[in-house]
């Protein structure tokens, strides 16, 4: 099912009469999601991603704008009639019902000509349970399941009625680190095998990048960039996106452009060609540094952290906006990094230049 958002806007009115300040949770969101894609809505907390999900599910009404599922305008359709599957952050499994009853619940709601026989319902429930591999837990209560199992039950419950779209709210946030890795692959697998257009919300950029077809980076209700994960990572539209994606985070410097050269401190580190001169913000990915005795960029060495395959060179620089600079380089450099300073040359495609005032990308 293709999903289209047209100028979608959600404004929460002010609750405090003395300070009438409304909150724009989602601002003018335009997006067309092709059928069968897995979309990650990504952003820090309060960026409007959960509101967007609620608007899609119908639990909240947009202030303005439209939502289409395929060619149907569902903007005014209540949640009950939208046919979406929603997996809540804390799963919202009915605690008094068994796994089987939980999964069957949406099917029992069907009325009239859609009404199913008991056998058909049991069959569909079992099928959904098999898909998420919980068919052996059908008679347990949610309280008797682990977090990961509950998560699967919630997904099965959302999938059993063959929803038009599947929505997942922070699907991995309640799981421990190992389970998170496993579950995100699981979500990818389930999404692939069902082919249902899926939209999930996360604040974890790694999670979003690893499984999404497209990621949508949001901040304060505004969509900053939409694109394939690698493209968004490689070509961030602005400073916020550059900072938000990537672990360890990108290194940000106060810099200047003079005569087509990028200056950090007194050193000209890169030819950036014909862009407006003046003060700018430069950002360098940790993997954009190359340890080089004759390098153009000098930093004060703080320490070296060994990670096995790579080493992390931790340094400082007076123009750095971060407390420390992190450079990820191959472990073969371990011997050559010592002393008070370390010199780097930079990979051209890992250096970005942004406008100082609004973070807009210049280079």
């Amino acid at each position, binding site marked *: 099912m293709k999903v289209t958002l047209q100028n979608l806007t959600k404004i929460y009115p002010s609750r405090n009469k003395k300070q009438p300040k409304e909150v724009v949770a989602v601002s003018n969101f335009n997006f067309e999601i092709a059928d069968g894609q897995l979309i990650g809505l990504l952003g820090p907390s309060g960026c409007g991603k959960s509101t967007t999900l609620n608007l899609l*599910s119908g639990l909240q009404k947009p202030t303005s704008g439209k939502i289409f599922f395929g060619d149907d305008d569902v903007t005014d359709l209540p949640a*009950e*009639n939208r046919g979406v599957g929603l997996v*809540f952050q804390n799963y*919202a499994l009915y605690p*008094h019902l068994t796994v089987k009853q939980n999964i069957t*619940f*949406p099917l029992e709601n069907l009325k009239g000509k859609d009404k199913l026989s008991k056998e058909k319902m049991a069959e569909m429930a079992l099928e959904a349970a098999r898909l998420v591999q919980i068919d052996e837990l059908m008679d347990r209560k949610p309280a008797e399941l682990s977090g990961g199992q509950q998560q699967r039950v919630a997904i099965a*419950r959302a999938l059993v*009625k063959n929803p038009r779209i599947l929505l997942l709210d922070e699907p991995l946030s309640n799981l421990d680190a190992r389970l998170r890795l496993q579950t995100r692959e699981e979500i990818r697998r389930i999404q692939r095998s069902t082919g249902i257009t899926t939209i999930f919300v996360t604040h974890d950029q790694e999670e979003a990048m690893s499984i999404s077809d497209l990621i949508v980076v949001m901040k304060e209700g505004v969509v900053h960039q939409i694109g394939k994960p690698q493209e968004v990572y490689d070509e961030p539209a602005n400073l916020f996106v550059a900072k938000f994606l990537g672990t360890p985070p990108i290194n940000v410097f106060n810099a200047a452009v003079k005569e087509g050269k990028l200056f950090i401190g007194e050193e000209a580190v890169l030819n950036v060609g014909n862009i407006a001169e003046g003060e700018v913000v430069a950002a360098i990915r940790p993997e954009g540094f190359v340890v080089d005795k004759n390098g153009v960029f000098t930093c004060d060495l703080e320490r070296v952290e060994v990670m096995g395959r790579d080493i992390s060179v931790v340094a400082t620089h007076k123009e750095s906006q971060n407390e420390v600079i992190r450079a990820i380089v191959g472990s073969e450099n371990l011997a050559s990094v010592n002393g008070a300073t370390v010199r780097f040359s930079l990979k051209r495609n890992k250096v970005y230049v942004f406008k100082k005032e609004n973070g807009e990308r210049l280079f």
Partner: protein
Amino acid sequence: MKNNNLKAWLYLLPAVLFLGFFLVYPLIDVLIYSFEEGYNYASQTYFGVGSYNFSYVLHDPYFLQALKNTFILVIITVPVSTALSMLISVALSSIQKLRNLFQTVYFLPYVTNTLAVGLVFMILFKQTPYSDGLVNTVLSWFGISAIDFISGPYWAKMLVLCIYTVWVVMPFKILILTGSLASVDEIYYNAAKVDGTSKWRIFRKITLPMISPTVFYLIITGFIGAFKAYSDAVALFGTDLNAAEMNTIVGYIYDMLYGTSGGYPSYASAAAIILFVIVLTITCINLLVSKKHVHY
């Protein structure tokens, strides 16, 4: 381990002492009285030991009347008051405006004195030489002739007593139920909504099971409270309840002890033990049933 036990008992001591002194000892005493025939307070003497007291009480037409009244009261008021409270609580939970006002209004009877409420019911129901009472006035609009609710036919008196009891016990139930309804996490309702569940089904399949512990608590305490009814009848029909055919078991016990025909602690004790057994049995049945239907 031994040391620990000693400490535990030490901590428990105040409660154990109080309970023992004011609850266990009197209970045993009452049990003893109920088997002592013709016990006399003043002389502290009795004729003999046996089950005559029970036999007397169970053959006393006044007791049988009280038993019948109490059972009718319990069977009618507990379900009616619980269902009505549920209805009002759900309505209260689903309105936004004036919710606090309504909550206060519904809670008012709880803080009102029983006898004062009795007075209100008098105005509503009592026939005087000057007026037929408010209810009769309303009934007359529909062409129904005046009924004497306070000293008239049995069913009319019982009706008033039931309405009165329901009215008095509802505020507490509404309070507890609205609290319980508010504690059900919104997220379950959202989940059900997304799954296309109708309002009625959400109530039956989600709300009700989730508040079932509270509902059963109210039913059990409702049963116990209704079995112990007394002051309500007094407020409506005065202290001579036997004459009004409106006595309750507790009323009978009181009459046997202190009433005009009183002075029979043995009979009173026997009646009290019978009441105790009835309440215990009903409560046990309630608990057994609730184990099947309460989900936590």
